C-alpha cells in the first residue's frame, strides 16, 4: 500500500507544480487554461450527479448561470447602483478601485457558491423526486426557463446583457488579469478535486451508487435516499456556482442565453466531457474535459462556422458508440489496474471458448 501512496503523491505534486507553472510556461494560453480548469470542474461535478447518482441532469447550467449573474451583481451592487450600471454603459461612469474590485469579486464568489447550493436544496425535494428521463427533461426545462426569464429582467441587463466590472486599470502588469483568473480557477479545480476525491473514499459515494443501481432497494435498505440526493445536488451546485462566477469575470460580458444559461454549449459540454472520459470514475471527467478542450480548440478554428455541426456529430458518435467512455474502455481492457480481481482460470476458459 505504501508504495501506491508514494506513487500518488508524486503524481499529485507533479500535477500541482505543472498547474502552478502552466501560466508561465504557456503564457499565451492563459485564458484557454482557465477555461480548461472550469470545464474540468463542471465535468467533475456533473459526474457526481450523472455518473455516481445516476441522475442525468441538464440543469447544472442553472447553477453555473446563477453564479455568473450573482458574482457580477454583487461585485457591482456592493459599491454602485446596479440598475444604473446595467442600463447602459455603467461601467464607463462608475470605476471600481483595485480594493473594491477584489473585495467585490471575493464577496461575489462567496454568494455565488452559497446561493445556488441553497436553491438546489430548496428545489431539490421537488425535482429529485423525478427519475430517469423525466428528471433529465425537467432539468433541461429548468435551465432554459432560467435563461429565458433572466433575459426578461431589466435590472440584470435583460436582453442586452450585463458587462461585468473591468479589471482595475491601476494594476499596470498586463499579464495580471489572466494570471488572476487562472489561479482563481486553478484553486477552484484543486478544491473540487480534493472534495470529489474525499467523496470517492467515503460512505457517501456508496450511497450514491446504491441510488444509481436501484433506488427502491436502497430505500428498502433504510437509506434516506432523498436526503442524500439533495446533498449530492447541493455539492454540485456549490462548485458550479463558483465556476460560473469565475467565468463571468473572465469573459467580462454576461448574456442570458449565450453566456450564462448556455444550455446549447456549456450545458451539453459538461455532459459530453463526463461521458467521453467515463462516467462514474474519478479521473474520467478530468481526462474527458482535457481531451474535449484540446479537440475543441484545435478544431474550432479550423472548421469555422461548422463547429456546431461537428459538436452535434461528436455528441451522437460518443453517445451511440462510446457510452462507457475512455475509462470504461480502459477498464474493460486492463481490469487489473482498476483493482478488479480476475480469476485466471475463468479468463483462460473464456479465451478458449472464443
Amino acid at each position, binding site marked *: 500500500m505504501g508504495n501506491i501512496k508514494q506513487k500518488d503523491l508524486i503524481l499529485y505534486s507533479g500535477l500541482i507544480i505543472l498547474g502552478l507553472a502552466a501560466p508561465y510556461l504557456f503564457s499565451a494560453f492563459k485564458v484557454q487554461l482557465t477555461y480548461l480548469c472550469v470545464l474540468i470542474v463542471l465535468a467533475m461535478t456533473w459526474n457526481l450527479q450523472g455518473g455516481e447518482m445516476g441522475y442525468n441532469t441538464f440543469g447544472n447550467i442553472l447553477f453555473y448561470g446563477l453564479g455568473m449573474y450573482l458574482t457580477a451583481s454583487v461585485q457591482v451592487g456592493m459599491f454602485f447602483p446596479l440598475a444604473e450600471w446595467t442600463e447602459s454603459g455603467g461601467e464607463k461612469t462608475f470605476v471600481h478601485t483595485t480594493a473594491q474590485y477584489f473585495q467585490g469579486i471575493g464577496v461575489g464568489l462567496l454568494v455565488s457558491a452559497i446561493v445556488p447550493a441553497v436553491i438546489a436544496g430548496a428545489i431539490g425535494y*421537488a425535482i429529485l*423526486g423525478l427519475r430517469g*428521463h423525466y428528471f433529465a427533461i425537467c432539468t433541461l426545462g429548468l435551465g432554459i426557463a432560467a435563461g*429565458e426569464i433572466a*433575459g426578461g429582467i431589466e435590472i440584470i441587463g435583460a436582453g442586452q446583457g450585463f458587462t461585468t466590472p473591468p479589471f482595475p486599470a491601476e494594476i499596470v502588469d498586463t499579464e495580471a488579469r489572466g494570471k488572476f483568473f487562472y489561479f482563481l480557477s486553478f484553486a477552484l479545480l484543486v478544491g473540487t478535486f480534493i472534495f470529489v476525491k474525499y467523496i470517492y473514499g467515503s460512505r457517501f459515494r456508496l450511497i450514491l451508487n446504491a441510488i444509481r443501481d436501484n433506488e427502491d432497494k436502497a430505500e428498502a435498505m433504510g437509506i434516506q435516499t432523498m436526503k442524500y440526493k439533495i446533498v449530492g445536488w447541493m455539492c454540485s451546485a456549490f462548485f458550479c456556482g463558483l465556476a460560473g462566477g469565475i467565468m463571468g469575470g473572465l469573459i467580462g460580458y454576461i448574456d442570458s442565453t449565450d453566456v450564462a444559461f448556455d444550455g446549447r454549449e456549456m450545458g451539453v459540454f459538461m455532459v459530453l466531457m463526463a461521458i467521453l472520459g467515463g462516467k462514474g470514475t474519478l479521473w474520467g471527467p478530468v481526462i474527458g474535459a482535457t481531451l474535449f478542450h484540446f479537440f475543441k480548440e484545435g478544431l474550432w478554428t479550423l472548421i469555422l462556422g461548422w463547429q*456546431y455541426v461537428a459538436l452535434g456529430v461528436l455528441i451522437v458518435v460518443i453517445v*451511440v458508440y462510446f457510452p462507457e467512455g475512455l475509462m470504461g474502455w480502459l477498464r474493460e481492457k486492463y481490469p487489473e489496474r482498476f483493482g478488479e480481481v480476475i480469476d485466471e482460470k475463468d479468463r483462460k476458459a473464456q479465451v478458449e471458448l472464443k
Partner: protein
Amino acid sequence: MLMVQASLDGILLGILFALIAYGMALQWGVMNIINIAQGDLVILGGYIAYTIYLWGIHPAWGVIISPIIMFFVGWGLYKLVINKVVDRDLFISILATFGIAIVFQQLMNFIFGADVVVAQSEYGTTMLFDNSVTLPNSKIFSAFISVLYAVALVIYMKKSRLGRAIRATAQNARAAKILGVDTEKVYAATFGINAALCGIAGALISITLTLHPYVGLPYTVRSFMIVIVAGLGNLPAVAVSGMGLGLFEEFADYILGTEFRIGAVFMLLVLILVYRRFKLSKKREYLK
C-alpha cells in the same frame, strides 16, 4: 374582447401543437425513444414549405410536399442514428437526438440564414364581433388541415396493414417479431411518419407563425408536455391538452408579456412534472 382573441388564438395554435405531440407519442410508444430533435424536424418541414414559397408556388402546397420529403428525412435519420438507440437507455436517445438537433439547427442556419422568415399565404383575415377580434384565415386553415391529417392518420393506423403492424410492435415488439412483423421496417416507418407529421406542422407554422433555425426546442418541449399530460396513444386527450397548452401560452403572453412566453412554457413543463411527482408520491410511486 382580448380574452376572446387570446382564447381563439390559443385553441387554433393548440391544435397544431397536438399534431406534433401525436408524432412524439407515436415514436415514444412504439420505439421507446424521446426525440429532442422533434422541434427541429418541425422547423425543417417549415423551411421546405418556405422554399417552395420562394420558388413562387403557394406555401399551402407545403402541407403535401413537406411531409413527403420529411418522411424520407425521418427514414434516413432512423437508418443512420436512431436504430442504434432503440432498446437502449432513454437518456442515450435524449442525448443522441440532442446532438442531431444541434446539427439540424446549424445546417438550417447555413442553408436558410439566421433571419426570422414567414411564408405569406395571403389568405386575409376574418373579423369577428364588430372587428374587435381579428382571426387570420391562415390559422383557421392550419387548424383544419391539422384535424384532417390527424383523422386520416388515426384511420390509417386502425385499418392499414402497416398501421396494425405499428400498433402490434408498440404492444409487444418481440411477439410481433415472432408473428412475422419486420420490426426494423416498422420502426423506420414510425420514425418516418413522425417526421412527416412534423413536416405538416412545420409547413403550417411557416404560414401562421414565424420560422427561425433555433426555435425548435420549444416545440419539442411543448409536445413532450402534451404527451406526459395526455399519456401515450390517447388521441382525444392529446388534442385537448394541446388546446389547453395553446390557451395557456396565449394568456401567458397577454399577462406576462411576450418576452416571458417561452420561459413560461418551460416553467410550465417543470411545474407539470413536479405536480405529477407529488401526486404520485402520495401513493409511493413515481413517473415511469
